[in-house]
């Protein structure tokens, strides 16, 4: 075995040391002859006889050298080099063909590599830390189904109970990933995304600080909890990578925090972008029954060795069931989900389906490109039939011919792949530069990494086979007799060859149609979203968001006072027409709440009614321009002491009250952190889209902000002119009230909506351009095929015209051939595309695509393009001069 390995190694090496080894062999053989001649001379032979005898005994010099080469090297590799040289020579001789084929493949491969860089960045990158696959993420399952209902955070009492009762985990940590703090150390106060984590969080994940240390036990106790760990990004941006910051204090939300450490830049969990970490402090209040409604913690737990994920999952389901029995009021129907850390991050980020659509699209475009190149190669091999026949007649094996033609495909694919990689390098930068609409996405750098390189290599090889196989197999079938006899006098080309090309082109048409309908559906969706009536007037609105900290605004009364004060000052800004505050701005996807309607039987937990829940100040509806349809909106008297009232939207009346009289009806909302009370419906307003990036209207409940204020809220001012002119006045107003309070997302409403709709329009546009490219490639394919067959049939056409066929007849004949292929391809593509709307609905939450017109428009468009592509060569056919056509060849 070792000997064999050693020999293989030497053999391979020899292939690359050919010149030197040949030189040595030459010297050795010369020495051999000299010795033989000398011995013969010593035996008394004359000089020329001595030489003759020596040569006879030696045997054929060239055979010996060849034997030596075969014994020492790899004959297969030599043949490959020969094939390669031959292929390259052939390609250099026809630069037009080579350029077209290489460019087509390069484009296809570049698109695939670029899109794959996103797969690599988002799906394949390992989360940081030790053995991330042994870290389980525990979440709650919300019985009210919705988007990602099974990654709902967990409440503090459940965290404490599950941590204590569980045998499967070596350690369990909790993190509230969605906190906001204000940093007022240097410069303008800034609102930062932060996470509150239990002290063992970093240990459970298996990561350590780049500088300083992470939290230690007990730092979640009140009094010791004013410590903070910074992200690398924040440390760099706000503190200029100052290493002496460790141990110093910075000011966060009006309090002093000691900086313990800085995490490395590589510590990043996909989808989470906290800029700093503080200890999660759980007090007695977090263990009460009311705290069960406050679900804000993600649980990270390291599995004990030899404990499987399934086992841990089963145990947590049992624990969640127990909580449901013990606290039916709050826990009924809620389950627990357990995933590994990598799984959870990818699932929670929910980008997988979008990437699948992207990859399918670029994959199809590449298949079309390959079909085109295969078509080109076929056309070329048809021209080389005679050459192949001669080679077969001279004794070349079929396998050798197949290998030769495959090598040609390989050379084209490698050239295409290398060029594609260059293009992809640029493409990745382009996509990366456009992926800035969302902090979580732009936090993930795209790069041409090893995964992308390997993928490109694989794709290029696949292309080589796809492009080379059909021509290779056809080529090896060459029948020596007919090919050599065939003097081009045959009436038309061989049936089987044109059948392969017909299949290729039909397939291209089908794929292109499928892609166009798919992206057409998505395009239509984006168009609808961008041009829909959101239900309020977004123009002239200027917005910002505020988070009141616990230090200064712990009491709801203080929050109410601040909000009241803020609104009255905002209204006095010159150029402001109206101002309001609300827990959520219109069409920004507010939270949902489950509810009960008085006089109706109570429903099981997983079937309870739910509605969007927004807290709004008095002038909210007027400021946003949401029309009041029935009853009244809130007044100054709807305060904390007054009877509780709510306003609902039209959809609420329609869906939950079955269009019955809504005014005066009582509803009860399951609001977290307080005992549910009955509220009277006093008004009905128009529907506002739930989320500007979707088209759905959902039942919505508005509560008066002054009755139940929120610590985090947004403010909104309607301007009489350009809303952006209010920016500085708005900042000043807030600073006058509280200089240490940061404002976040300070921008006009249209800008906010654009940011919210973010990536989708970009991606759909990219997809659309891919689909158009697919159509162009398919058109080139059909053009190439028809042009080629017209070229082949010149003789036949000449005969037809000599026998009296008129130009229009010929034109019709050729066009009909093209149409037939297009029609078959379009029919196949149409059938394939039928289930697309349903598929998209299932893949993307909240999408409902129905656009039957597309199934008519796209095939017609394809027919038109294909007709044009056929018409040009068909025209040429009609200009055939019968005399010259018949003389040809």
């Amino acid at each position: 075995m070792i000997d064999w390995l050693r020999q293989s190694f030497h053999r391979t090496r020899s292939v690359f040391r050919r010149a030197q080894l040949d030189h040595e062999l030459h010297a050795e053989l010369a020495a051999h002859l000299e010795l033989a001649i000398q011995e013969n001379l010593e035996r008394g032979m004359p000089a020329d006889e001595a030489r003759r005898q020596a040569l006879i005994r030696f045997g054929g010099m060239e055979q010996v050298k060849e034997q030596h080469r075969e014994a020492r090297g790899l004959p297969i590799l030599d043949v490959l080099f020969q094939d390669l040289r031959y292929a390259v020579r052939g390609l250099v001789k026809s630069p037009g063909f080579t350029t077209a084929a290489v460019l087509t493949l390069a484009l296809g491969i570049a698109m695939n590599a670029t899109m794959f860089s996103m797969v690599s960045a988002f799906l394949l990158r390992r989360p940081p830390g030790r053995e991330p696959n042994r870290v389980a993420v525990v979440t709650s399952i919300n019985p009210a189904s919705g988007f990602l209902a099974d990654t709902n955070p967990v409440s503090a009492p459940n965290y404490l109970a599950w941590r204590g009762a569980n045998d499967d985990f070596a350690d369990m940590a909790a993190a509230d990933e969605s906190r906001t703090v204000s940093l007022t150390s240097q410069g303008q106060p800034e609102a930062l995304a932060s996470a509150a984590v239990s002290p063992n969080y970093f240990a459970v994940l298996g990561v350590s600080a780049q500088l300083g240390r992470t939290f230690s036990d007990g730092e979640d106790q009140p009094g010791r909890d004013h410590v903070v760990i910074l992200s690398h990004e924040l440390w760099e941006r706000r503190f200029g990578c100052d290493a002496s910051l460790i141990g110093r204090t910075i000011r966060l939300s009006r309090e002093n925090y000691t900086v313990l450490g800085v995490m490395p830049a590589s510590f990043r969990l996909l989808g989470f972008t906290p800029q700093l970490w503080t200890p999660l402090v759980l007090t007695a209040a977090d263990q009460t029954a009311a705290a069960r409604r406050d679900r804000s913690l993600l649980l990270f737990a390291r599995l004990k060795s030899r404990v499987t994920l399934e086992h841990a999952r089963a145990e947590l389901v049992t624990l969640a069931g127990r909580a449901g029995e013990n606290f039916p009021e709050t826990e009924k129907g809620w389950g627990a989900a357990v995933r590994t850390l990598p799984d959870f991050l990818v699932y929670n980020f929910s980008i997988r389906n979008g990437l699948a659509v992207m990859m399918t699209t670029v994959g199809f475009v590449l298949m079309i490109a390959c079909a085109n190149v295969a078509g080109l190669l076929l056309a070329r091999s048809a021209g080389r039939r005679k050459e192949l026949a001669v080679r077969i007649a001279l004794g070349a094996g079929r396998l050798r011919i197949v290998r030769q033609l495959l090598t040609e495909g390989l050379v084209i694919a490698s050239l295409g792949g290398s060029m594609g990689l260059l293009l992809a390098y640029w493409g990745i930068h382009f996509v990366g530069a456009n992926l800035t609409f969302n902090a979580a996405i732009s936090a993930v750098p795209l790069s041409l990494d090893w995964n992308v390189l390997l993928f490109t290599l694989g794709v290029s090889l696949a292309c080589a086979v796809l492009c080379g196989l059909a021509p290779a197999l056809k080529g090896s079938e060459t029948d020596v007799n007919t090919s050599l006899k065939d003097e081009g006098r045959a009436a038309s080309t061989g049936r089987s060859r044109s059948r392969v090309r017909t299949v290729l082109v039909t397939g291209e048409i089908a794929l292109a149609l499928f892609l166009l309908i798919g992206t057409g559906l998505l395009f239509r969706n984006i168009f609808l979203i961008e041009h829909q009536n959101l239900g309020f007037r977004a123009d002239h609105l200027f917005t910002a968001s505020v988070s009141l900290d616990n230090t200064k605004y712990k009491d709801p009364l203080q929050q109410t006072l601040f909000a009241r004060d803020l609104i009255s000052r905002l209204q006095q800004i010159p150029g402001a027409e109206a101002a309001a505050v609300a827990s959520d701005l219109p069409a920004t996807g507010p939270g949902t709440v489950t509810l009960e309607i008085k006089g109706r039987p109570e429903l099981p937990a997983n079937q309870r009614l739910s509605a969007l829940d927004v807290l709004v100040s008095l002038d909210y509806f007027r400021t946003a321009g949401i029309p009041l349809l029935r009853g009244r909106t809130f007044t100054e008297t709807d305060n904390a002491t007054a009877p509780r009232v709510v306003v609902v939207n039209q959809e609420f009346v329609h869906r939950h009250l079955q269009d019955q009289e809504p005014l005066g009806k009582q509803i009860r909302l399951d609001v977290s952190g307080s005992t549910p009370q009955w509220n009277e419906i006093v008004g009905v307003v128009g529907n506002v889209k739930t989320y500007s990036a979707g088209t759905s209207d959902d039942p919505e409940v508005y509560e008066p902000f002054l009755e139940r204020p929120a610590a985090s809220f947004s403010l909104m001012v309607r301007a009489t002119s350009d809303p952006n002119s209010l920016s500085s006045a708005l900042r000043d107003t807030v600073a006058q009230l509280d200089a240490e309070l940061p404002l976040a997302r300070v921008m006009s409403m249209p800008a906010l909506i654009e940011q919210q709709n973010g990536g989708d329009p970009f991606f759909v546009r990219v997809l659309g351009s891919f689909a158009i490219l697919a159509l162009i490639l398919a058109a080139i394919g059909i053009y190439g095929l028809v042009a080629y067959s017209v070229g082949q049939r010149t003789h036949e056409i000449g005969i037809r015209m000599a026998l009296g066929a008129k130009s229009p007849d010929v034109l019709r004949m050729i066009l009909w051939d093209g149409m037939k292929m297009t029609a078959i391809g379009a029919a196949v593509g149409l059938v394939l595309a039928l289930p697309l709307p349903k598929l998209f609905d299932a893949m993307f939450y909240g999408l409902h695509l129905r656009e039957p017109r597309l199934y008519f428009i796209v095939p017609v468009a394809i027919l038109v393009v294909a007709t044009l592509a056929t018409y040009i060569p068909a025209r040429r056919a009609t200009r055939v001069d019968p005399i010259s056509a018949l003389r040809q060849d």
Partner: protein
Amino acid sequence: MAESKLDLLQGTLDLMVLQTLATMGSLHGYGIARRIEQVSGDKVLLNQGTIYASLVRLQQRGWISAEWGTSSNNRKAKFYCITKRGRKQLSEDAAHWQRLSSVMGRVLAMPEEGGHQ
């Protein structure tokens, strides 16, 4: 004349080369070829040149080593030497050949049974 000589079976030349080097020590290609001719009493059909394919094969397997040196007539020539691993291989192969040839001898010496067909 060619018919009267023994055609070499695949692999036998390698064994002859190994055996020659084992008994003679360091030798160049011509020396090995001559030695085999002499020992076989000119009974094997051997184009001297054939030996070089065998030499490179043995060398790549690590059974012999080679070195440029000076021949008796003061010319540069490549000298071959058997290695330790080569000796081991030789003893294995020689044993194998001896077993095979004794079996072949016995089989061929089998008395003919009367009345074929």
